[in-house]
């Protein structure tokens, strides 16, 4: 039972960090990032590859974050002067291009065989038996830190400018705010946070391969953000907890049903789809979102 709770804490915690990066971009800045998983993959691969080559873990994690942040900023600079949906198209393309590069650059990534046997933080100190428990603690600490960082920013003048861009970019510009720069900043910071979650995911899985980073992962993050309430950091964390709770309990129930594994994973997605549709009908603002923010204006 403890193992079960620890595994939920780990996956939900890692995905909560991942989704918090997206919530900054979508919930606060209104940016359509459909390739969020690419930055998670960058974090995971950069950390693992550097640490396998003798770089200590902390700098390896930071390098992944910086690289992902730079990539996010670059994609933003290339597309944000165009209409907003171009960012969505370019980011989803980027995430698939990156996955195929990881699959095919075998000399570096070992392709679909994946990477394993890489260092994990404090693995000698903690020992293998309690390692997941330790890692869950680490993940929750990082989650708390990221949450506090984002809450501070959301309540700051910086966050206010971001929200104004989400509501009406022309107003922000007319009041002297460089909207373009703020959008690039939000993309860079959100991508760096996704990279951090990627490093943690690599530590947890002990084995990474490019197919861990399919586009569906991006949309899991979207489900978490929308379910919890866009622009609400606590909601996003709740969304992650609910989605992973749902995944693990339904997996648990599979034993009692006579579905084949493919059918049951399909049924699970159908169920999530139905829940989301129901939510859009009866609680469109998300679990913790504020209704006024949806019903006013327009």
């Amino acid at each position: 039972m403890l193992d079960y709770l620890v595994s939920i804490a780990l996956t939900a915690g890692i995905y909560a960090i991942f989704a918090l990066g997206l919530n900054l971009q979508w919930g606060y800045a209104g940016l359509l990032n459909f390739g969020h998983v690419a930055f998670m993959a960058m974090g995971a691969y950069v950390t693992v590859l550097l640490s396998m080559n003798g770089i200590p873990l902390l700098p390896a994690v930071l390098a992944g974050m910086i690289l992902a942040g730079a990539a996010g900023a670059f994609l933003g600079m290339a597309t944000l002067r165009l209409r907003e949906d171009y960012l969505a198209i370019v980011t989803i393309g980027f995430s698939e291009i990156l996955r195929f590069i990881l699959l095919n650059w075998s000399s570096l990534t070992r392709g679909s065989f994946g990477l394993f046997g890489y260092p994990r933080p404090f693995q000698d100190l903690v020992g293998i038996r309690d390692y997941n428990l330790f890692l869950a603690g680490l993940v929750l600490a990082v989650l708390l830190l990221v949450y506090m960082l984002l809450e501070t920013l959301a309540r700051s003048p910086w966050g206010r400018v971001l929200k104004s861009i989400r509501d009406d970019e022309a107003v922000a510009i007319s009041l002297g705010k460089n909207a373009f720069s703020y959008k690039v900043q939000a993309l860079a910071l959100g991508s760096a946070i996704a990279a951090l979650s990627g490093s943690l995911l690599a530590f947890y899985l002990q084995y990474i391969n490019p197919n861990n980073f399919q586009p569906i992962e991006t949309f899991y993050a979207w489900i978490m953000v929308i379910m919890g309430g866009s622009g609400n950091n606590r909601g996003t964390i709740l969304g992650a907890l609910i989605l992973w709770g749902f995944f693990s309990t339904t997996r648990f129930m599979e034993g009692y049903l006579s579905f084949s594994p493919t059918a049951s994973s399909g049924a699970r997605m159908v169920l999530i789809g139905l829940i989301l549709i129901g939510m859009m009908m009866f609680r469109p603002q998300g679990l913790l979102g504020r209704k006024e923010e949806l019903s006013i204006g327009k």
Partner: protein
Amino acid sequence: MANEVLSAISVCKGFGGILALDHCSIRVEEGDIVGLIGPNGAGKSTLFDVISGFLPPDAGSIVFSGREILGLPAYKIARLGLVRTFQIPRSLMRMTVLENMMLGAQGQAGERLYIPLIRRHKVMAQEKEIREKAEEILEFFDLRRMRDEYAGSLSGGQKKMLEMARALMADPRLLLLDEPFAGVNPALADRLIERIRILKEKGLSIIIIEHAIPYVLALSDELYVLNKGRVLASGRPDAVISDRRVFEAYLGEGA
């Protein structure tokens, strides 16, 4: 002679085959209110878009506070003290009235990504100052009691007021008001005229686009009439308004 705040010279802007602005020139003296009228499609809002940097002109020159601003990005023009409002009120619907106001303040250290994380006290102190200023201006526009409401829940007239109030937060030197009286009920409009006069007395220069001619006449020191992208007439309001050509532009030739 008073100082010149703005001088737009021979500005041209075409959309496809249509010349929205055709060698249009306009100047504003320090502390003056300049009225801008003309039939629909005369190019008034386009002129605002060009002056404020939201649209690049095809030709011309725009000098603000002695500096050529043509080609500067819109946000930089706003920072220089040339602030515009929009014809259709653009409140930030999902932000409160107070948040809308506080956004307008210039020179906020906390708008840099890292400052709120490392200089919390400085940011908090500045926020307090900005909040006090915002409440003062809201009071001036009778909006203070609405400060915690979502801007999206205000009435049309209140949104217009909020937009003007928010622009004032930026301490503009020249304010461009695009139809400030549209959607404002007559009782409120009279109070708005008083307030605009007070702003003028404080030294603010203003250009007003307005269809309601009586309000423009009540406020303007100078009046420009635009028609088909050109300045049809300009000068003292009473002289301009009795010009036969202005009459014809509105009602058609031979009217």
